[in-house]
């Protein structure tokens, strides 16, 4: 069950190592001033996919802001998560152009398909479903972004198939 061959696992370990940068090294990039709070949160979020209670305390200490202030920043902006996000991020564009072309129906279908509300994560922590406003790809509306890939001019079946392959 846990058998790996040696070279194989070594490679993987290198890959994994790259993924987790110490929060200290993220904090070192910014001077300890309150104006860097949002930038820091964004970097930590990019690294850990969510902002944990522990990390927020480190950040607050670094920039000299009370946790309550950071909490309102954290919850005010949509892009921050306070709970771990799934491995794959499925984002449905609900911009005007996409709306006119049926983005709402795709979002609803994904909710059904993944059995999860939007802005939430599936129980197996595989997918997080989000809606976004406009990544600027209106030309190929409706657009669904899975991690960093665009699925342009898509429909419910295409998205389902794409997710199946992941």
């Amino acid at each position, binding site marked *: 069950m846990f058998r790996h061959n040696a070279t194989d696992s070594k490679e993987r370990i290198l890959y994994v190592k790259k993924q987790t940068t110490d929060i200290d090294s993220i904090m070192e990039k910014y001077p300890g001033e309150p104006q860097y709070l949002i930038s820091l949160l964004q970097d930590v979020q990019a690294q850990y996919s969510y902002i944990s*209670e522990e990390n*927020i*305390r480190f950040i*607050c*200490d670094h920039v000299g802001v*009370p*946790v*309550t*202030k*950071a*909490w*309102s920043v954290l*919850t*005010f902006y949509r892009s921050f998560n*306070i709970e771990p996000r799934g491995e794959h991020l499925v984002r449905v564009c609900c911009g005007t152009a996409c709306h006119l072309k049926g983005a709402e129906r795709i979002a609803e279908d994904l909710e059904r398909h993944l059995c999860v509300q939007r802005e939430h994560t599936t129980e197996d922590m595989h997918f997080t479903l989000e809606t976004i406003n406009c990544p600027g790809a209106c030309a190929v509306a409706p657009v669904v972004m899975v991690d960093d890939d665009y699925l342009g001019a898509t429909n419910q079946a295409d998205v389902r198939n794409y997710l199946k392959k992941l």
Partner: protein
Amino acid sequence: MKEIDTKKLINFSINGTPAQAKEGWTVLDTARNMGIHIPTLCHHEAVEPSGACRLCVVEARDGAWSKVVVSCMYPPYEGVEILTDSERVKNVRRWVLEMLLAQCPASREIKALAAEYGVKSTRFRIKNPEEQCMLCGLCVRVCAEVVGVQAISLGSRGVLKHVSTPYMVPNRACIACGSCVTVCPTGAMQARLDKVRGDVSQRTGHGFAH
């Protein structure tokens, strides 16, 4: 200290009555000093105004130009005419109060104020019949500006906005002084206080406090 020329007087009018203000005074300050009543909810003398509840709106007129402004923040200027009860102003207040009745149906204070403007019931959907909070943020401002602990904050935004503590757990930065309860204009903080301060007698060690 702000550099204000306290000698200079600004002449304008409120509801047709000549009024005088010094630099730094708002319309509300001046009106209250003259004994003119303007309803407010989110205003408290101890903290900076935020202009959130929009009940203290007044109409500012200058010739043909006219605008609805919030009196708690609007600095009067020479010659402006202020109307505290014009139709436009009443329209805003009535709608705000009617919507408030749906937002915080359990608040006695809101009901009384709405009745003053002839609003007795609301047509809008009542989401939570127990709700009293109108999210004016006074508690948060008092906690930060007067008490200086910042134990509570406004979380989230828009319709999801709420008064909360980080991660929704009682905040040990809270000194349980009750200032938030004392300034709450709708009585909502009474119900929320225990969630903020937690069980005070069990309190030890360090929490989120800075």
